[in-house]
């Protein structure tokens, strides 16, 4: 009967047919109970006929769900591996400041957050020498979460077309360049998740945008594929092979649905001026018109013409304090100076997004030579404010630690959603392979890519952390060598995944990740003065938390490895067998 309802001799349990099968099986079970009570065989026939009719009577609805199922499958599969990497590296970026702290063990733990105003003044003094003659520099102020000050400056004399800027990290206590190992820290994961690495940043962002668009389509078509999204959320069938994968995929997707949709859409919004420049190109044709748009999006102003009259920059700390009285002590994000040292200097002190759910630009504009407040810009237009709120929702910096953990966990759920979706593609098709010993090329490709990306990325990310502790501090260009190690380890995992039988590759690489993760705290204890027990003793929860997180992830990978080893794929299960076993399982 199930085959009849499916029609067309379809042997594969597609998403839709499994829903149909469920409905039919349920109807049958119900009808059977009824029949027993009434002791009439007629009821069974009637109910079955009714169930069949109900399915057939809606050919159009079925068509839509099947089309959406196909779209969901292929949109998800084609870019699924990139999405998986974007999701996982983006998720860990919610703790990028903490990861960066862990990756610079030389910088002692700070009991209290450094005074942003004093730190800004110290770094500004350093930049006056280090970046003398630069047309623009910008300092990101320290927060309670970050123990360093990042700054960048335009290289003096560099043409606008070139990559004319440098960046460095500074010590907020002294204002000097940081005396710590050279590393990008958590910033690498953050940048990788929307522009990747090795390829030009613009290409990477376009690729990320394309993948995000596929994701948006996969989310919408995934929801439309469901007949009963609410009921499916509460359905979980353990140890039932493909159905368990499907239920896990459903539960992860539906639980985090608002988050997944939000994070995908807001991700596109963050780079929308790049992806959709056409309206701006049409409506804004003069330089001043374009500037009117830019000021709605970011607190940067282009450097004006220098007056070529020397004038030392006024006190930056006073400017920051003035901003603090308006916005609160912890919500000043950065200090940007244009033409510092010149009479035409301007300083912008801009507001952060830790005390409000918006990242729309709010700033105070000062005359850099006199220190006089010229303008306070604390409002943008409605559309710009909407964009600011969407931006802040993506970054998640407005919340406290609990919310950060929630973002992190739901983000991991999203990663698992993509991962289970990718794995399901093979689980679903394995049952119907013409020759299970020799799968066709596409099947083997997806199978191997899944191992290489899902298990491989965990190993690569851990490899990056290992490189941070093991690479000598004196290595030239060290921050980038750490990243080269990340990709070298990942490439090795790819080769391994190609060389071994798929199931063995899964188990061995998952174990490899588990062991490497579990040993990170050991490595840390051996190579730094800040082992786990000491971190706990002094209450350094960034360090202790990092070590604990490594053990938690090690346990997760070990569990996955054990479950994979125990898993026996059911090859060529008959549809009848499934249809019969199902009501018993519930």
């Amino acid at each position, binding site marked *: 009967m199930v085959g009849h309802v499916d029609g067309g001799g379809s042997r594969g349990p597609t*998403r839709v047919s499994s829903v149909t099968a469920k409905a039919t099986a349920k109807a049958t079970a119900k009808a059977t109970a009824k029949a027993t009570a009434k002791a009439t065989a007629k009821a069974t026939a009637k109910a079955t006929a009714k169930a069949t009719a109900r399915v057939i009577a809606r050919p159009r609805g079925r068509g839509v769900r099947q089309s959406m*199922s196909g779209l969901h499958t292929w949109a998800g599969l084609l870019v699924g591996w990139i999405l998986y990497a974007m999701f996982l590296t983006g998720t860990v970026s919610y703790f990028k400041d903490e990861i960066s702290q862990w990756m610079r063990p030389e910088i002692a733990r700070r009991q209290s957050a450094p005074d942003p105003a004093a730190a800004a003044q110290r770094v500004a003094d350093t930049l006056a020498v280090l970046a003398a003659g630069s047309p623009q520099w910008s300092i990101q102020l320290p927060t309670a979460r970050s123990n360093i000050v990042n700054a960048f400056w335009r290289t003096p004399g560099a043409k606008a077309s070139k990559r004319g800027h440098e960046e460095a990290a500074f010590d907020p206590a002294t204002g000097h360049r940081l005396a710590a190992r050279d590393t990008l820290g958590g910033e690498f994961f953050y940048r990788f998740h929307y522009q990747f690495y090795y390829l030009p940043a613009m290409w990477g962002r376009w690729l990320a945008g394309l993948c995000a668009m596929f994701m948006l389509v996969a989310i919408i078509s995934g929801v439309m594929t469901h007949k009963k999204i609410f009921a499916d959320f509460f359905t979980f069938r353990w140890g039932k092979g493909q159905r368990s994968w499907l239920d896990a995929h459903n539960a992860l997707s539906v639980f985090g649905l608002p988050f997944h949709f939000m994070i995908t859409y807001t991700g596109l919004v963050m780079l929308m001026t790049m992806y*959709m420049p056409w309206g701006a190109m*049409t409506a804004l044709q003069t330089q001043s018109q374009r500037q009117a748009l830019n000021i709605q999006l970011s607190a940067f102003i282009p450097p004006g013409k220098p007056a070529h009259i020397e004038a030392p920059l006024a006190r930056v700390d006073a400017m920051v304090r003035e901003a603090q009285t308006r916005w609160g002590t912890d919500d000043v994000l950065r200090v940007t100076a244009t033409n510092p040292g010149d009479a035409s200097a301007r300083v912008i002190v801009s507001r952060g997004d830790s005390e409000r759910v918006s990242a729309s630009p709010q700033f105070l504009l000062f005359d850099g030579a006199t220190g006089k407040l010229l303008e306070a810009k604390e409002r943008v237009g409605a559309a710009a404010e909407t*964009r600011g709120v969407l931006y802040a929702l993506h970054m998640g910096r407005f919340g406290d630690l609990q919310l950060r953990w929630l973002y992190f966990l739901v983000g991991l759920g999203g990663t698992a959603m993509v991962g289970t979706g990718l794995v399901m593609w093979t689980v679903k098709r394995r049952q119907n392979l013409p020759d299970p010993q020799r799968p066709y090329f596409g099947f083997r490709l997806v199978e191997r890519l899944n191992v290489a990306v899902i298990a491989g990325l965990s190993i690569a990310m851990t490899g990056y952390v290992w490189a941070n502790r093991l690479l000598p501090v004196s290595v030239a260009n060290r921050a980038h060598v750490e990243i080269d190690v990340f990709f070298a380890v990942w490439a090795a995992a790819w080769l391994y995944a190609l060389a071994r039988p798929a199931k063995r590759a899964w188990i061995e690489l998952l174990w490899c990740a588990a062991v490497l993760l579990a040993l990170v705290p050991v490595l840390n204890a051996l190579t730094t003065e800040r082992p786990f027990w000491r971190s706990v003793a002094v209450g350094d929860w960034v360090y202790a938390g990092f070590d604990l997180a490594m053990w938690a992830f090690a346990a997760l990978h070990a569990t996955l490895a054990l479950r994979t080893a125990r898993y026996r794929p059911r090859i060529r299960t008959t549809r009848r067998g499934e249809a019969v076993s199902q009501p018993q399982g519930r």
Partner: protein
Amino acid sequence: MHVPETPLHRETVDRLHRPGGIGPLVARIVGAIFGGYALAMLSSVAALVLPMPAPQAVLTGMLASFIVYAGAVIWVFIARSSLRAWAGLLMAAVPLALAAWSAMSMAAAAGGRLA
């Protein structure tokens, strides 16, 4: 080799065995990726006719364009045939193109005044 049975798939398989190949599927994919982007682009320009300051209209158009894009892709794969999919895209494009054209001529006139 098993592939799930969907209208899309049936169409593909039917066509694979006939001259003309996988035309309809390719037509849908091209319609979804490029047609969808074109529609999103048109809507982002069409938003300029909204009665609000130019930067806000520009941003509104950008914000809406991704929803238009996603909707267009969904439509292309829901439509019963690739012909209907493209017809739907074109029907949606006509009013958007008119609005975009009026926004462009307005901008050109304003630009002329500025120059």
